């Protein structure tokens, strides 16, 4: 597949009378967007705020972060099977509004966490403090259940990102990146001497607030399968996961999967990036055995020499991670796994819930239990009262001045297990 990703650099967002992109500024007519979103009967209201890097603003509780994109040429449309029709994506031309994102907030459940600080020490731990964000505060209709609420907010975020992405359709990109992937046979012919490398992408799939959708299909119902790396760039994988802010993959992460980007960067040079194997993290133990067997079987079928494995979550998924790693290694496929850690506030506890000597090459996104002090921000957007819940349980929790002492866990994207960030631990 060949995909041209045209980036339009956004350096500002302003609310205005007419939605458009002009000279790097994204103008949003919120009335129009609101009307569109409120077509969903489960939503009572949607409010909008704009936040910029460096501002003294705290956004919480964050549900998802989505990057505006639009399919300009080629089969299908962005967010296939959910927003666009189900056609296969990943080829042709796609435009991206780079440097900005849609951030949805909402209290689907009382214990919801997820903080983005746009400045201060907290900003160093989330990639979203570097973006201009259109924050959408969604309120549900009275009486709807948690799963309806989650669905409503998820759809609202995707619709908003689609609406904004559409504004880039006819623009000339500031920068274009071209991604070319090879088929199994042509790749072997083209790069006979390069190691064959695959990416086993583990997707959260444990249930409500813990789901991932691939072309609209709930990953818990899917067998492990193969994706072309560029399909993710058109939104083939979407997040329905809103628990554990630090290591859940937002839709933004799926669109900008760093493992895929880095492997594509090396494709044809130091390695042959054969493909992506997506697999799940189910609760039923037999499903785990089946999925890890299948992932390994697919990796063997593709005759991989090595595989990068990234996971999503902690505890239950650690078992999947180790199963995948062990079985791949036993099949002679060398692995590097990417995870994060819960080593306790003092860093002395066992970092993972599962372990095996076969996992001898690990990259870590850091200890999520590290305690961080987030100073008071001038403005708190979303559901400010959620700060009480987030801070609850720590000594000197939520101070009267609005500062929060909490674990890194609560910051959106802080210990991402795709290796999105530079944070690590030793």
């Amino acid at each position: 597949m060949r995909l041209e990703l045209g980036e339009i650099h956004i350096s500002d967002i302003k609310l205005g009378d007419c939605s458009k992109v002009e000279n790097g500024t994204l103008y949003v007519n919120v009335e129009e967007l609101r009307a569109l979103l409120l077509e969903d009967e489960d939503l009572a209201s949607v409010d909008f705020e704009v936040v910029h890097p460096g501002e003294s603003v705290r956004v919480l509780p964050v549900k998802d972060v989505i990057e505006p994109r639009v399919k300009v040429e080629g089969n299908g449309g962005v967010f296939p099977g959910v927003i666009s029709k189900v056609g296969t994506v990943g080829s042709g031309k796609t435009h991206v509004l780079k440097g900005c994102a849609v951030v949805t907030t909402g209290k689907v459940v009382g214990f919801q966490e997820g903080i983005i600080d746009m400045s201060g020490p907290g900003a160093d731990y989330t990639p979203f403090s570097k973006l201009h964000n259109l924050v959408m505060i969604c309120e549900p209709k009275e009486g709807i259940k948690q799963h309806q609420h989650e669905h409503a907010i998820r759809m609202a975020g995707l619709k908003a990102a689609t609406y904004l992405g559409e504004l880039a359709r006819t623009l000339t990109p500031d920068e274009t990146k071209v991604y070319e992937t090879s088929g199994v046979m042509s790749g072997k012919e083209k790069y006979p001497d390069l190691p064959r490398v695959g990416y086993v992408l583990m997707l959260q799939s444990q249930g409500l607030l813990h789901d991932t959708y691939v072309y609209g299909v709930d990953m818990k119902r899917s067998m492990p399968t193969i994706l072309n790396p560029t399909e993710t760039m058109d939104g083939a994988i979407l997040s329905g996961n809103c628990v554990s802010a630090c290591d859940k993959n937002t839709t933004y992460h799926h669109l900008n999967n760093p493992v895929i980007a880095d492997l594509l960067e090396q494709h044809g040079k130091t390695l042959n990036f054969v493909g992506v194997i997506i697999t799940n993290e189910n609760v039923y133990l037999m499903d785990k055995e089946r999925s890890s067997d299948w992932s390994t079987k697919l990796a063997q079928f593709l005759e991989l020499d090595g595989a990068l494995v990234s996971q999503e979550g902690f505890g239950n998924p650690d078992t999947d991670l180790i199963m995948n790693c062990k079985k791949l290694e036993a099949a002679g496929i060398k692995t590097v796994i990417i995870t994060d850690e819960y080593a306790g506030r003092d860093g002395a506890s066992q970092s993972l819930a599962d372990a095996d000597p076969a996992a001898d090459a690990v990259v870590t996104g850091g200890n999520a239990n590290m305690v961080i002090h987030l100073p008071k921000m001038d403005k708190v957007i979303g559901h400010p009262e959620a700060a009480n819940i987030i801070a609850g349980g720590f000594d000197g929790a939520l101070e009267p001045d609005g500062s929060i002492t909490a674990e890194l866990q609560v910051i959106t994207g802080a210990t991402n297990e795709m290796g999105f960030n530079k944070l690590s631990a030793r």
Partner: protein
Amino acid sequence: MLLVTNNEKVRDQYGSLCTLQFVDGGHVDVLTHVRDLVHSGHKLLTHPLAGSVKPNETPFRSVALTEEAGPLDLESLDLIEAALGVCRQFKPRFHRGDDAPADMREDFAEIDFRLIHGAIAPHLQKGE
């Protein structure tokens, strides 16, 4: 199927559909009871650490095991002992245990129910 839970929502939905052992206690009490069952030869069917809500962040836990007991299953033993180990390393969090306010309690119960429901419903249909 043997379902061990301290979640009334789960008991209400599944009490009549399978053998349910209700634990009148907290998260760790459920896992301790599951451990005892594993030592008695029951095999785990679902992961004792399901969900990204950490063990110290929710009062509820539901775990499914085989109804029949056989020789000790070492994998189940590893899993449940590791789960209890994880519980020990997370200190209790304010308002996340029995002290959770009513609406949060409802949310915790719903998530726990959804996760166990998603895991076992397909298998109960088959009459396991």
